């Protein structure tokens, strides 16, 4: 699915958080959002997800304008910063509760996703007893479980250990191979450059640079 920002600005109260932003995210590609805290990465994610709409300009998904033609992208998986679930439920129950809304996946798929994110051994543990890393893993599981066409991952490596970061990289690459359009934001430039087909740098709500990261072998040659 193609995502197009056309001269998008967004005001929250009196603050201009996104300033005349235009870019295109190609289908089946991984696009990285780079920028310091407060630069506007999360707002871009929220604009794509339909949780907020543009004050001016348009955000469109496959030609359909969000807030006008559609309220939300038709097939979306979303991980925002600090994912939140129901404390009294187990990780599995939380995923099942969310999956029940669309009823597009079965219990086996939920079990499979729990295994992919490394939570299969914590099936009976309540969410309130989850560590930060486990919460993050559950957030990632919720974002990918329904095999969505668009996956938005805001700081997916937050609170994860080295193994967790590798797991996230594997998941993102697998989702890309499946045909999903992935947008990620990450503090870690190295992880972002390794994963992304294209990187958009954002500063104070504006795009400052848009580029293709160098392929690995090219970088090695350069270093040598």
């Amino acid at each position, binding site marked *: 699915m193609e995502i197009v920002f056309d001269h998008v600005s967004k005001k929250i109260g009196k603050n201009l958080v996104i300033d005349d932003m235009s870019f295109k995210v190609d289908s089946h590609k991984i696009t990285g959002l780079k920028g310091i805290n407060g630069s506007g990465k999360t707002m871009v994610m929220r604009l794509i997800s339909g*949780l*907020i709409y543009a004050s001016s300009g348009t955000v469109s998904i496959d030609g359909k304008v969000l807030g006008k033609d559609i309220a939300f992208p038709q097939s979306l998986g979303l991980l925002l910063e600090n994912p939140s679930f129901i404390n009294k439920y187990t990780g599995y129950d939380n995923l099942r509760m969310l999956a029940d809304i669309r009823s597009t996946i079965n219990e086996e798929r939920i079990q499979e996703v729990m295994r992919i994110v490394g939570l299969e051994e914590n099936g009976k543990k309540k969410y309130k007893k989850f560590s930060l890393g486990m919460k993050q893993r559950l957030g990632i599981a919720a974002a990918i479980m329904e095999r969505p066409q668009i996956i938005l991952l805001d700081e997916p490596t937050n609170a994860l250990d080295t193994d967790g970061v590798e797991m996230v990289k594997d998941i993102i690459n697998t989702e890309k191979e499946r045909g999903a359009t992935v947008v990620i934001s990450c503090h870690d430039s190295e992880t972002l450059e390794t994963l992304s087909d294209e990187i958009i740098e954002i500063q104070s709500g504006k795009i400052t640079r848009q580029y293709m990261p160098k392929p690995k072998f090219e970088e090695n040659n350069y270093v040598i």
Partner: protein
Amino acid sequence: MKFIKLLYFDLKHGVFKSYYKYLFFLLLVSLAFWECHSTLSANDLNNAKFSDYLLYIYGGAKEYIPTPGVAFKLPYLWLLNHVLILFFVLNYMHKDLEGVGQQIIFRARSRNLWWISKCFCQFLSILFYYLLSWLEILCLCLISGVTISFENSTFMVDVMDFGEKLLPVTNLCLIAETTIYPLLFTLCLGFVQMCLSLFIKPIFSYIVSVAVCISSAYRINIFLIGNFSMALRSNTVISNGVNDLFGIFILLVLGSVSIIIGKIKFGKYNILNRE
């Protein structure tokens, strides 16, 4: 189908999992009942009926006419009933919107369905508070040996000091005055509060609700809609009371308009986490 699932989620998490709120509310209703019981006993009205207890708790107060030396008495049981219920239903929508509700709303792919589900949830939640409190008062009356009847007794004349202005009230009217009207008022103000909370912070919308209740107790005015919920200010109970039918009309219109404005506002509402 999606709406049923959204409503099921809201009822489960917004109504039935808030059992501690209901317990607290029922505790206060029992305190109100015992206060009423002791007042009636003090006035030697041993023939008081179930309807008198409902009137005492939900009936409000007669019109206050500012007079030197006469202090304004706040109908605190009437006020407490409304402000407590409105407080209990205040936060669910916003709490859900900042948490797992964000995952739910984009899966439902409709802001309208989500809003309507929240309105249904609020309606059922308020209704549930009332049903529980009526049931509790009924049980306490049965335990205390109070006659279960809606017949008009001398209670209002003697305790509320209405004297000659009191009109003969039919049983059906008394049932409506002590149950339907307070319920309609809480529902209406609940929807106004819910709608307002999309424009201003939820706590400020709650302050507006409390202000409407207190102002309604202080003076009679059609804009102070709390008057329509007070049996002791109704034109079926006193000769110069507020018009009940007009009250129903105003409450229904205001509640419906709030739901519609809320739906329009929520269609463009920024779903963000509170900073």
